[in-house]
């Protein structure tokens, strides 16, 4: 099973080199752990990079309090199983102020619960480098981002002022207050990630596999009723449908796809014939023009 095909071996080695570079060149690195499939792959690569040593930096999860319950269970089990140092950060002020995906627009919600929470967590930990699982095939502004992506002391990304990134020679130098976001999965595609999960037998959150779940139809997407906090609109009644997720975020903002793929092989076969992108169900990608670019400039991952 571990006989990886050539192209995955190349991607794996490239990512390991990047992760090691972060550990070697920065004083206080951290790895973002968002519990999704990309995070699971990133975690596996980090374990490989430092073997036989343990991962020499903590993992950070920015918890909006609106993640799927299955994700939190999976996160805690993973921290237990692999013995990594897990930091969980929530924007408590915003929670106490009553910010939810329903009371506020997705732009404001995302800004407070994700972008601001992340910036606060990075500042609190005085982290000078943060590894994330973003891929260039996800979204157009990500396709333009460097593997080592500089952030100003205000954590801002300036797409016009990126460092040229030549060969495999990464310029890791930062001035006081500046930090680096690092994307070891930059050159992976969604298919690569799934194939790697399959061949490496990497555990993933069960929500990626189809089963009957309670959902409602909103803005053309299937939204799962993960707990009692999801307000029902008039005439709305949850129905059971065979669904799964291609991308996991906050449950009220993550659209499911209808599917009968209950095993990894079935998911991979389904992927092979899919004609829509994985972020198609992500409501935050399209809530404003140039959406992701703006969010990224402000410090979103």
């Amino acid at each position, binding site marked *: 099973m571990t006989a990886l095909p050539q192209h995955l071996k190349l991607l794996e080695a490239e990512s390991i080199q990047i992760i*090691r570079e972060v550990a070697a060149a920065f004083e206080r690195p951290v790895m973002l752990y968002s519990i999704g499939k990309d995070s699971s792959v990133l975690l596996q690569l980090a374990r*490989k990079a430092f073997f*036989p040593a343990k991962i020499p930096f903590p993992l950070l999860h920015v918890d909006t309090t609106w993640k799927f319950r299955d994700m939190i269970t999976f996160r805690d089990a993973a921290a237990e199983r692999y013995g990594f140092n897990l930091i969980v950060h929530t924007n408590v002020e915003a929670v106490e102020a009553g910010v939810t995906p329903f009371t506020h627009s997705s732009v404001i919600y995302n800004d407070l619960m994700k972008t601001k929470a992340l910036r606060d967590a990075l500042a609190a930990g005085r982290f000078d480098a943060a590894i994330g699982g973003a891929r260039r095939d996800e979204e157009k502004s990500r396709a333009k981002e460097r593997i080592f992506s500089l952030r100003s002391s205000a954590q801002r990304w300036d797409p016009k002022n990126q460092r040229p990134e*030549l060969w495999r020679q990464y310029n890791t130098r930062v001035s006081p207050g500046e930090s680096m976001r690092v994307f070891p999965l930059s050159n992976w595609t969604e298919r690569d990630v799934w194939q790697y999960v399959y061949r490496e037998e990497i555990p993933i959150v069960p929500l990626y596999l189809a089963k009957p779940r309670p959902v409602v139809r909103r803005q053309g997407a299937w939204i799962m009723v993960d707990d009692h906090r999801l307000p029902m609109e008039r005439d709305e009644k949850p129905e059971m449908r065979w669904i799964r997720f291609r991308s996991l975020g906050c449950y009220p903002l993550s659209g499911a796809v209808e599917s009968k793929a209950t095993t990894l092989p079935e998911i991979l076969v389904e992927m092979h014939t899919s004609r829509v992108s994985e972020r198609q169900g992500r409501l935050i990608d399209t809530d404003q023009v140039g959406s992701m*670019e703006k969010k990224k400039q402000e410090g979103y991952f």
Partner: protein
Amino acid sequence: MADTASLDAHELLDRILAAEDRKGLLRFITCGSVDDGKSTLIGRLLYDAELVLEDHLAALANESVNRAVTQDGFDFSLLVDGLQAEREQGITIDVAYRFFATAKRKFIVADTPGHEQYTRNMVTGASNADLAVILIDARKGVLTQTRRHSYICALLGIRDVVVAVNKMDLVDYSEAAFRDIEEEFEAFAAEIGLPNVQLIPVSALMGDNIASSSSRMAWYDGPALLDFLETVIVDDERERAAVQPLRFPVQWVNRPDLDFRGFSGTIAAGTVTVGDTLMVTRSRTASRVRRIATFDGDLHRAQAGDAVTIELADEIDVSRGDMLAHETALPALADQLQAHLVWMAEDEMIPGRSYILEIGHDRVPASVTELKHRVDVNTLERAAAKTLALNGVGVVNIATDRPIAFDPYAENRTTGSFILVDRISNATVGAGMIDFALRRATNIAWQSFDIDRAARAGQKRQSPAILWFTGLSGSGKSTIANLVEKRLYAEGKHLYVLDGDNVRHGLNRDLGFTDADRVENIRRVAEVARLMAEAGLIVLVSFISPFRRERRMAREIAGDVPFLEVYVDTPIEICEQRDPKGLYAKARAGAIANFTGIDSPYEAPEKAEIIIHGGIGDPEDHAAAVIEAIDRSFRAGTGTNRY
């Protein structure tokens, strides 16, 4: 696959994966001048190959409203020009990486900008590509940017080039137009050494010869663009690297506990086998490979491209930045080398200025000792030059503070390439490709004499030091330095004052006041100060020295000689009132250019050891304050040391 329904998922998946695994990966870049239609070409390629996903296509149709569109109703450039700033200006600012796969191959495309000010991004894309697609507008022919990009492709070692002659629809699909360009380009390619060139007439807008052959150009019997990309056999860097001598740059020392000490890194070339004797290139110490460790189990042998951890049999000193190799085939080790340099910063490259050179995982201060010539990428002529501006390409000699291990770029793109980083802004300012080591570096050994600095200083009963006075013209540097010298001389100390004006009469009389000459001016004076300190003297240097970079260089040249920066901080209004040499008056009248404080900046020290407020108080008091500060710093630094 009509019978797919009867197969179970496992069997079906095995079939799919087997097919996927056979596909190779081609990394290519697209380049060309502004408005040649690169983004449109890639968008069209993806669309015609039916690789655009449904939701992306829906978004594209929506965004294409109010824009110039094709007959299909799309503006294909919007598929790749993702940034708001790009859409506003209608140009591609930065490299965009796109991924697609056909039935035959996987592709990573670096879509690079045509705009001249972003040439550095084109170099970025080319550094990791196997092949280049260069676009030419059929109406315009071979332009400056075409030449520049082709030359950079050749320089970066790309051997395979496809020239897509675009907008054939606008020249009535004329064969003559195409043949003219073909002839001109092939002559140019031969000149710059691009071995494999394929020209294809296309129309990205109309889809001619993109995914399938066009009936509108029956005179062309070559492949369509996609056919060609799917089938071209390119030079396989990894295969080539595997048969070269072993190069293992040490990235990280892996020490989980006292029982294990391994060296992690990615093999840049060659193979390593358990039992091999490896040598540390710099220290020339050697040991045997005990174990090649990976998460997936120990290996007996590993090859180029593998990310592994090597454990050696003996406890020899190896750290990040070292290179391990077989004793019989070591890389070059030198502190002087010749390289091709592409300049990537607004601030011009100035010989003598100190940068950080990064090669592999090694980081070392370095400077360009000589710009041998600049290459005019239009005419390919060698032009004499003193500096390199943004996007300039030149051949340079480089000196590093300590020897580095490398191979010529022509032999290995990984161990033969480096970047230069600015020491203040940390920006990546240069990309270098090493030609060879300079012999003189290895032949000049440091001659050691029995009488050393300590002996000379002992004889003079003093501790040598360099006092570096910096400040505006007229700030009072020389006045204070003079008083400090008089007082210490009276105590029986041995000193010398190096003064900016005086040195320019002799040693530095060949230098002017351009930035490049100022850098060289400071470099020479810092070297002289160091030699004098070696002779046991206390050296007072009184130079405006306006740039932080150069004062830092002077401090580095001083090495282990105590170096104290004395900042004479006098407001420019006062300096200008004093104007002892009448220079401010001349500068204000426009008679002197590049005058510090007037039309050339002064960068105040961020942490000078001694700060004197030269606008207030008495110079005698200032001199006393300097001597007191020197004493204090010596007592703090070396205990009882008194001049």
